């Protein structure tokens, strides 16, 4: 049996999971019949719901291969069934002809008129992400919720929502999901958008807001964007070696160029990269005029379940002292 589509350590478990899905076929057939007979039956047990969730990314990877290279079990599954994810978080498996005969006519009718009910078509790996993003209210600090958010531009409201969601995911150990959303922020809003999101996750946005209270929302939006233009650097656990080198060079350039406040921040596994970068820079012994501050600690946010390693390194000179004073509450409690 060709197991090439999976990394070795996952093979047995995942094939077993896929088999479990195929074992559901009799129930699916029953449901398919039951659709018309209004028969009620258990379709996917809670443990199979979990299995299905786990195997979706693998189904996604495998489905992108030419059909003759797909794993036979996966090919059989994809040939016969579609997966539906309801807004009740329940996965349903439907035979292909069900989608063709029952759902496609509805989708066609939506082209003619707006509809209250929504049927979205998304890929395997992003399905849950789209669903969660839509459903979960974006939790923001009180200082931000006291503002009239609808007075911000549409783009800025959207970026705030995304940044809030990413922050929540990051601090609750869902870094893969958070990284996927960060990737989409970069696609839509560029490097500055991503930098804003990172500034939000670390706490810069909330702290900065305290210093600009009383301004109108338009001015606040302008000011907050300025944070994304500062020499603040962030590492990711998915970073390639050349990116580590690039950040090292950028920080070195900022220090040589006398930027007044420079910092690198990281969470979780990415902390090792940030430490590696700062260790390299310290070796260069660049400028004694900068004061520096290293914070390597485990922290927990009010909305997170567990403590996470946070690594920060800050350089500031006389000109940057006021900025450091503004943000030092983030590092020194």
């Amino acid at each position, binding site marked *: 049996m060709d197991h090439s589509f999976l990394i070795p350590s996952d093979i047995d478990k995942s094939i077993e999971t896929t088999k479990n899905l195929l074992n559901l076929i009799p129930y699916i057939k029953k*449901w398919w019949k039951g659709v*018309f007979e*209004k*028969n*009620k039956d*258990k379709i*996917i047990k*809670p443990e199979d*719901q979990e299995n299905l969730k786990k195997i*979706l990314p693998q*189904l*996604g990877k495998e*489905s*992108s291969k030419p059909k003759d290279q797909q794993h036979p079990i996966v090919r059989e599954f*994809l040939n016969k069934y*579609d*997966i*539906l994810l*309801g*807004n009740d978080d329940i996965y349903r498996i439907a035979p292909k002809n069900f*989608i*063709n005969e*029952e759902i*496609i006519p*509805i*989708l066609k009718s*939506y*082209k003619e008129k*707006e509809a209250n*009910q*929504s*049927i*979205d*078509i*998304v*890929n395997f*790996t992003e*399905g849950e*992400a*789209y669903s969660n*993003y*839509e459903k979960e209210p974006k*939790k*923001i*600090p*009180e200082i931000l*919720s*006291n503002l009239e958010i609808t007075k911000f531009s549409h783009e800025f*409201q*959207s*970026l705030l*929502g*995304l940044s*809030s969601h990413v922050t929540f995911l990051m601090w609750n150990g869902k870094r893969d999901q958070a990284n996927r959303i960060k990737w*989409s922020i970069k*696609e839509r*809003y560029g490097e500055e*958008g991503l930098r804003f999101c990172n500034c939000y996750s670390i706490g810069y946005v909330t702290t900065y807001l305290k210093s600009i209270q009383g301004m109108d929302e338009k001015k606040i939006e302008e000011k907050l964007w300025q944070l994304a233009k500062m020499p603040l650097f962030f590492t990711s656990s998915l970073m390639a070696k050349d990116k580590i080198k690039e950040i090292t060079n950028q920080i070195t350039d900022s220090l040589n160029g006398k930027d007044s406040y420079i910092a690198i921040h990281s969470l979780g596994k990415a902390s090792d990269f940030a430490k590696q970068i700062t260790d390299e820079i310290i070796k260069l012994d660049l400028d004694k005029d900068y004061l520096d501050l290293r914070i390597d600690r485990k922290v927990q946010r*009010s*909305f997170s379940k567990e403590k996470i390693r946070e690594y920060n390194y800050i350089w500031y000179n006389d000109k940057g002292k006021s900025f450091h004073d503004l943000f030092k509450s983030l590092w020194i409690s």
Partner: protein
Amino acid sequence: MSFAFESWEETKSKSFKILVSKTRKKEIFNEIGYHILESGKIIDKDSGKELVGADNKGINLEESPNLALILGSHNFVRNIAEYSDLLVKNGDLKFISEKNSLSKD
């Protein structure tokens, strides 16, 4: 927890997502009135026009692996960030204070 399955009429009343592979996505798009060119461009069969996103740039299925069709209004979004834009536009992006959410938890 029970997953007793309801009838199709009951299911139909809910919002849901169809999770698909890229090939299946093409098939469904084609069935509901869109033609996917080899280049990945999406053409509306009725108008013959190329589909564009909210940024007025053409949408390419090959270049946007996470492209989603948000039905109800036939809006295409390339990724979650564009989906977030759409939610804001429709007034569906909700913010709550962390403080309030904590007191509810």
